[in-house]
């Protein structure tokens, strides 16, 4: 069975003859959280807007559940829930009215439970213009998922949210994924993408420069694993560069720090050495390169792998 929910093939879009997106291709599988990452102007929002049917692509093929967004916008409306990066509701629309309003258009009962979950239950009578930016974004998200669409597209969903709301939103996204809902997420927040996404695509100047699971992408880079060790008698000071796969060694705030290309042999030989010297480990930390570091590496090198 083909579980491809979103298909983007050779998609192109230009504004005033300046290419915003240049022949990108990716697909998103059912129940997957797919992260679309990239610096400002990389083409994330353009891609999402064409998938949402807001804009027409210049070339290539876009499909959501076999629906062409620009040709069949009517069919698309009941398939996707969208939180736009920039949007608004009428200034005088109350939170509860907004929920009833949009649920009425989708023929479902209002989802007040979602408003409660996203911390809006005390604001039901508040008008849209009275809400903070964070609350407006929470409301927008609640409206996007209220009618349980099979595909949810989120453009910077946590921008402007506090830590609590962010955590709640992440939990909600994972819950939606559990229910088999496919999520396409555009974000600047690398930690968020790494935590939530099954796969990510990094866009740079309108092109996909890399695609894969966060782990695959970080593994592809030249990023080194950081091994920090602290012992009782500082036995490692005398060791020099005897450990395998270490490309750099520093001493900082009572820790010996090794940057390793292959952390397994490095760590085991450090432990053996400390034991042989009659010293005792106080602390040992292994930190693999983060998606953020890999992202910065990609953006600094202009996408060169």
């Amino acid at each position: 069975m083909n579980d491809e929910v979103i298909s983007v093939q050779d998609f192109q879009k230009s504004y005033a003859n300046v290419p915003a997106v240049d022949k990108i291709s990716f697909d998103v599988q059912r129940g997957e959280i797919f992260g679309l990452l990239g610096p400002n102007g990389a083409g994330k929002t353009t891609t999402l807007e064409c998938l949402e049917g807001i804009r027409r692509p210049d070339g290539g093929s876009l499909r959501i559940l076999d629906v062409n967004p620009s040709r069949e916008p009517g069919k698309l409306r009941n398939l996707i829930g969208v939180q736009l990066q920039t949007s608004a509701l009428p200034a005088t629309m109350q939170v509860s009215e907004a929920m009833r309003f949009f649920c009425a258009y989708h023929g479902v009962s209002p989802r007040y439970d979602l408003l409660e979950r996203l911390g809006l239950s005390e604001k039901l009578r508040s008008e849209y213009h009275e809400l903070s930016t964070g609350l407006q974004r929470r409301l927008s998200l609640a409206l996007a998922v209220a009618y349980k669409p099979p595909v949810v597209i989120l453009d910077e969903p946590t921008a402007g949210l506090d830590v609590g709301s962010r955590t709640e939103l992440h939990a909600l996204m994972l819950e939606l994924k559990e229910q088999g809902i496919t999520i396409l997420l555009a974000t600047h927040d690398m930690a968020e993408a790494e935590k939530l996404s099954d796969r990510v695509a990094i866009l740079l100047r309108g092109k996909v420069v890399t695609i894969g699971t966060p782990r695959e992408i970080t593994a592809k880079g030249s990023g080194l694993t950081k091994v920090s060790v602290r012992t009782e008698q500082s036995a490692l000071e005398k060791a020099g560069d005897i450990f395998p796969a270490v490309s750099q060694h520093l001493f900082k705030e009572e820790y010996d720090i090794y940057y390793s290309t292959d952390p397994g042999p490095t760590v085991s030989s450090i432990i053996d050495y400390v034991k042989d010297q009659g010293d005792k480990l106080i602390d040992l930390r292994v930190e693999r390169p983060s998606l953020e570091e890999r992202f910065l590496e990609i953006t600094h090198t202009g996408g060169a792998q």
Partner: protein
Amino acid sequence: MKAFVYHFAFEFRSNLRNPELLLLDYLFPLGFYVLMGAVMTQINPTFKDTMVPAMVIFAVMVSTVLGIPSPLVSAREAGVFRSYKINGVPSLSILVIPALSTIFHALITSLIICITAVPLFKGLAPTNWGIFALLTLLIAFSYGSIAALIGVISVTSQSTVLWSQLIFLPSMILGGLMLPVSMLPRSIQPFTFLLPTTHALQAYIGLTYGQNTLIDPMIAVAVLLVSGLLAFGLSVYLFNWDSKNTSRRGHPLMALLALVPYIVSVFLV
């Protein structure tokens, strides 16, 4: 249907919550009506003969021509229509329901005027209230469509003011609301038929008061109906719910087609 009813109810409440629209829907037309009833009837006693239709036209014109375009442009520029569209609200509902709600407010104001003008200011009541009501609906439709068209083609809220005033001010001065068109210089009279107000008043006078008019009242009705339909069709065709969307249908100058019935009517006077 449930969505339509809910949307309409929301827009109706929204107009009451918005001080600017509340002013245009109720305070301004009713305040002006009271002022005209108290002062104008003393200065010019013949004003009582056309007071009811003139003040109804005024109320409808203020609510629609001044009240519909600017919020439409503001909502589009703020991204409200974008949110609507992406959440499944059809374009037709986005355009039509706010206009319908405004028309409904205008009809409430008109009803207040109709009920109070005779006892308060001794205004002359129409002889046929049924036709009066039908004509009011037609006039509200015609003005509402023109107002929606202004909102659709205007790029900014400021430009809506310009277009709206191009209809509102000449209507006030030349449309017969304060002075009968017949009292204007003969050379100017035909040009007053470029205004919906003139046709609306002629239709009321001819069909609900049985008095002589400068144009066949049925022609006035036809002009209002055809121009209303043209303006409505053009509004729907030219409506762009997202100003960031570069691919839009038609050219704003197509809106001038809605004036064709008025231009033709000038030659029929």
